[in-house]
């Protein structure tokens, strides 16, 4: 018997009587101001948050915040004069190693944990939001939802090859529990809430 078959046989033999799968109860949040909740949590996990009216406004802020950035990639046409357009999908991901700043849209923001949902629909290359030194994500205010359950209400049936929740800059506390921002992924995360 193959290992596959013997494992499956052992599992079938040993699993208990079927316990039905129940519906997940509908969890709700009492949070009145989702944008504010999102911002508070985002700042507490090391992100910077800006409320902007336009991509142009976000661009001006980023140019100031990251004035030293040499290589910038943005999928927004407003950045055309300062950034490379998004790389084609068969680009060797290693060539992104020197990206200083990547500017991308996020589909959703979750108020309870300030996580932003991004899939390969937004990502020209999967590695981009991780390998860049600094990351900026833009989310429309109306796409901020209260809890993770609400996020999965939206993305539960979504089709993607890769998707990720990003909550803050990469971090570690492995050395004596001291929090250090900028482990292996982006050192900073700027979130622009488009109102």
């Amino acid at each position, binding site marked *: 018997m193959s290992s596959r078959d013997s494992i499956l046989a052992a599992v079938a033999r040993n699993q208990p009587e079927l316990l039905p799968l129940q519906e*997940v109860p509908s969890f709700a949040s009492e949070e009145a101001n989702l944008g504010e909740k999102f911002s508070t949590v985002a700042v507490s996990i090391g992100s910077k948050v800006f409320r902007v009216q336009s991509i142009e406004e976000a661009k001006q802020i980023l140019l100031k915040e990251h004035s030293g950035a040499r290589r910038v990639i943005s999928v927004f046409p407003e950045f055309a004069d300062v950034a490379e357009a998004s790389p084609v999908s068969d680009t060797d991901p290693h060539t992104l190693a020197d990206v200083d700043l990547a500017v991308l849209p996020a589909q959703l923001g979750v108020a309870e944990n300030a996580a932003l949902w991004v899939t390969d629909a937004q990502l020209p290359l999967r590695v981009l939001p991780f390998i860049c030194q600094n990351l900026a994500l833009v989310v429309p205010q109306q796409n901020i939802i209260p809890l993770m359950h609400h996020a999965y209400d939206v993305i539960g049936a979504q089709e993607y090859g890769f998707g*990720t929740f990003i909550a803050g800059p990469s971090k570690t506390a492995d050395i004596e529990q001291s929090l250090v921002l900028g482990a292996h992924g982006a050192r900073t995360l700027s979130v622009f809430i488009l109102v």
Partner: protein
Amino acid sequence: MTGDTKAIKDHAALADAFNADEPRVNWHDETLWFIRQKRDKAAHTIPDWEQLRETASRIKHNVLSNLHDYLLQFESNAKANGIIVHWAADAAEHNQIVHAILQKHKVDRIVKSKSMLTEECHLNDYLAENGIEVIDTDLGERIVQLAKEPPSHIVLPCIHKKKEEIGDLFHEHLGTPAGMADPQVLTEAARQHLRETFLTRRAALTGVNFAIAETGEFVICTNEGNADMGAHLADVHIACMGIEKLIPKREHLGVFLRLLARSATGQPITTYSSHFKKPREGHELHLVLVDNGRSTQLGRENFRNSLKCIRCGACMNTCPVYRRSGGHSYHTAVAGPIGSILAPNLDMKKNADLPFASTLCGSCSNVCPVKIDIHDQLYKWRQVIVKEGYADKKKRLGMKAMTQAFASPTTFQLAGKAGRWFMRNVPFVVNNNLNPWYKQREMPAPPKESFGEWYQKNRKKTDE
């Protein structure tokens, strides 16, 4: 670490060694207690916390009762997504599968992100013996790897190490200045060193936090971004998971991702929760489903619930014995309360001491996000181990007394001679009023004295 001679030190002996340095033990204790408090704060911000735990627990019960079908469903969906699925009956087969994939691609250097399963299977040693270099990329894991030690905690691999020791390691291996112990500087040095590594390795190995039957995708949670850096840069991504990591639907992640990081470190969510559904265009994505004793544990009615574990580490952070004896005293890949339930299933003789390394205070069960009855299972393992004749003589006698005591709380409370004998011989069980009748307390105050003092005091009491 391995071998089956009786020379292996048991938990108590290893705990003694850990306790030789008292300030260090206090520091270890306080650090973990601090993390436990962060968990409490995070849990208390969620009004529905208890309902979330209950929901998670029920989903996991359903998974265990329908695992056969979920495995089939997952396999067929993952294959349809283009993932290459492998099955490994045990650690040896797991290691061979990984090795064969690397051989096929002529890869002899890989990066690995955190995977307790590969620790359980001793994959690094196996690959090293076969001429393959593995670099662990989680900072804590890299640190213990440089120190040639196993991780001492499933979430915080080098929680037992002082920054000065890490500074020395980095000075030796990464060329940081002698005496440099600033976490910021050391982390930056590791970032530079590992970035170079990420950019030059063609295969990446990762663990899996959750796999979803309905969609055939899997999810990896990290704070550092190391799993993603490895996986998205490499030509070949190999993900390894125990068969119990399945959940039925994608929407269930809403429940588990709310619980995992809050229980682990008190964060609202890990920085990255990455969902891998299909391989990158033109690249290979392998997934190895590993049994290694899990199907056996599934058949042990009293212990099958341990398979609900989502590896958050909360039971370790809260455990007074873990905090004061250190992860290495458990001599097994997964330490602490949950490790002490999982290990005897794999090797009852070698791990016979572990279910005794507990006060049975129940704090672990109270913090567990999937409501595993951890301390009850530890107690039940003691009975099995004694019955099967694996306990040493002292513990065998202890068990007899314990069984009597547990049978009647009055006997226990009024216990004169018997109770004193009990404390002398089974010191883990009674001290500071830590006993199964104190279940209603979420957590006893952290013991202030050292493990040794604590132990001694209880021994002395018996002589009063």
